[in-house]
């Protein structure tokens, strides 16, 4: 999938956004659009709350704030939730930069966590060495799962979007299979009815936490996530590899002519995004869930994908977006405790995401209209009607 990356700059030039006043107007318009869109999303949510329950909208939003940002402990919970989403999103950006559209992050996360769990629970490693090996194994697991899609792409020309989409469902069944086989991951409890879930990870094998509940407490995995984001940001912006990725994403033909190998760089980006997703699975397992269950991935991979797509090729932007997703998850959990149907969060969150999509899309339309107008006026003055078609 190729996004028209160059179009925005071209249009911006046509629309004359290079002058200082128009740039300021543009910024103001952007902010205004975001405010309007968010207000709209919250208004729709409020109408739903009033229409369907007795709760006052303000109380509901306040409860979500309480659960996610109000206290140090709530912020810790938000960071815990944001951590795997951030890791997935950073990997997702690597793939989208190379125009490799990996929508199988959820499946790669599942498989990654699964492989990590096998290493942590079944190999009997000493506590000190187990954690790093678990995380590495998770990353390898995710990379291999994405590697299937990469292989199919460069061996048989199968579209990445389609193969990664299908592999998600295969991953669900692989997970289910592993959790139902006692020689693989099923719990070793003495109960006659064994549940399809893994054993709980011993505390010594878990990712360490900083701080104590009920105060501020956060998994140290968040530092890993932020450091990875920083490293990737640097690598994408400042290394030869990053430049090649960008080239491949913007114009594959030019990249090929310049000697960038589609299979090595593009396929590598796909595998690497799988590794990040797999690592996120390992972090979920060893950092917050401690147990593999059928639904343990809890849509984290898809949220990470959303986060990467909203951040639009920009690693720095994934930090606030992932934080937002984490806050929604943490706040939603708290909301459920107040008696409002917890599904409300699943209404508010997507509405806010849609609201975040609107401003860039509207601005894009706006620029095109302006470009068209400019082209028309130029065509009038030069009597060259052909320009209208070219610029619009």
């Amino acid at each position, binding site marked *: 999938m190729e996004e028209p990356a160059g179009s925005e700059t071209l249009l911006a030039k046509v629309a004359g956004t290079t002058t200082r006043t128009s740039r300021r107007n543009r910024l103001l318009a952007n902010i205004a659009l975001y405010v309007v869109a968010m207000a709209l999303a919250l208004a729709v949510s409020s109408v739903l709350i009033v229409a369907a329950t007795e709760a006052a909208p303000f109380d509901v939003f306040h409860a979500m704030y309480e659960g996610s940002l109000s206290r140090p402990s709530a912020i810790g919970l938000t960071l815990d939730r944001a951590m795997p989403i951030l890791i997935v999103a950073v990997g997702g950006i690597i793939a989208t930069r190379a125009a490799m559209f990996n929508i199988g992050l959820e499946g790669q996360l599942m498989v990654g966590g699964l492989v990590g769990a096998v290493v942590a629970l079944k190999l009997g490693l000493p506590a000190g060495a187990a954690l790093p090996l678990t995380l590495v194994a998770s990353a390898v697991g995710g990379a291999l799962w994405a590697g299937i899609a990469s292989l199919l792409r460069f061996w048989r020309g199968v579209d990445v979007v389609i193969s990664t989409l299908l592999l998600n469902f295969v991953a669900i069944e692989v997970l289910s299979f592993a959790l139902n086989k006692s020689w693989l991951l099923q719990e070793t409890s003495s109960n006659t009815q064994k549940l399809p879930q893994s054993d709980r990870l011993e505390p010594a094998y878990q990712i360490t936490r900083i701080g104590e509940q009920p105060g501020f407490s956060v998994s140290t995995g968040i530092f890993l996530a932020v450091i990875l984001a920083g490293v990737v940001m640097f690598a994408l912006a400042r290394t030869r590899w990053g430049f090649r990725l960008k080239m491949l994403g913007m114009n594959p033909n030019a990249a090929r002519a310049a000697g960038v190998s589609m299979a090595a760089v593009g396929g590598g980006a796909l595998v690497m995004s799988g590794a990040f997703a797999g690592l996120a699975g390992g972090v979920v397992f060893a950092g917050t869930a401690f147990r593999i269950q059928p639904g343990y991935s809890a849509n984290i991979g898809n949220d990470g994908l959303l986060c990467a797509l909203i951040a639009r090729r920009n690693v720095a932007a994934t930090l606030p977006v992932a934080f937002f997703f984490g806050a929604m998850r943490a706040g939603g959990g708290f909301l459920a405790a107040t008696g409002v149907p917890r599904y409300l969060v*699943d*209404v508010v969150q997507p509405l806010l995401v849609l609201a975040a999509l609107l401003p860039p*899309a509207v601005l*894009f339309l706006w620029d095109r209209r302006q470009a068209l107008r400019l082209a028309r006026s130029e065509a009038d003055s030069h009597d060259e009607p052909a320009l209208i078609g070219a610029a619009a």
Partner: protein
Amino acid sequence: MNDISVILSSAIRLTAPLAFAGAGEYVAERGGSLIISIEGMMLSGAFFGILGSSVFGNPVLGLMCGVLGGLAVAMLHANLSYRLDANTFVVGLTLNILALGMTSFLLETIDMTPHRAGQVTVPLLHDIPIIGEPLFVNRWTIYLLLLAVPLSWLVVQRTRWGLELRACGEDPQAADVTGIDVNKRRREGVYWLGLMAGLGGACLSVAQVGLFNQNMTAGRGFIVNAAVIFGGWRLAGVIAGCFLFGFADALRLALPAVGYTIQPQLLIVAPYVAALLALCFFAKRNRRPEALARPFVRGIT
């Protein structure tokens, strides 16, 4: 009824909702739009189908409400992606969450007394051994497939609109030059998908189950995506793909009861793997629309 009949019956019941949505997604994908919000459309169709049947006390009106419920999600998706240029996967994932959240939320807050679509038995034909019962004793909604599927084919393959739609799926730039409004055609294709997916969802809830459960489509929308790939973007193949998925599901449910033990995961995964293998080895025959999942912006090749 013998075992084979029972399994076939259940396979056909499980296939029907997929086949409606499959016919719709076939239309949308031939226009170049890869839509992953089918799940949301079906769920919305299932919910509003039951809501309609409970408000109007009539399964036919319920079905219509379901169709509109699917269309509403499709209109959101189409306008965000093919008018406003938002990434189709972002919109799809978000709408799936939204539909799940919205229907779960409303389910908890609205009391419903649904009315279920009636069963019909086709005279004489239902006496045919083995296939008689599965094909000719069903809730009547299933027979709407006989209308929906040929109509979808006709519209895509035998009308001017369909030709233009396929042009948008193969080469949007060329289509644009000939004066076709590419994004408009794509929107219309997605609307068709919304109608069909809504109908499929409503068929599931109003006819087959008779009530609405939280997340009752349970991934069927994604199965439809896989079925379209499996069918190589041809309608007959898509419907066959839907049946394959339905049949695997029926086997998974029925085999333990009949006394066979088989890996359930293996059965479920088989159609997905078959779809992947078909992509690998019949690449020439199963040709995807050239511009599938690529946004169209005028002036950029």
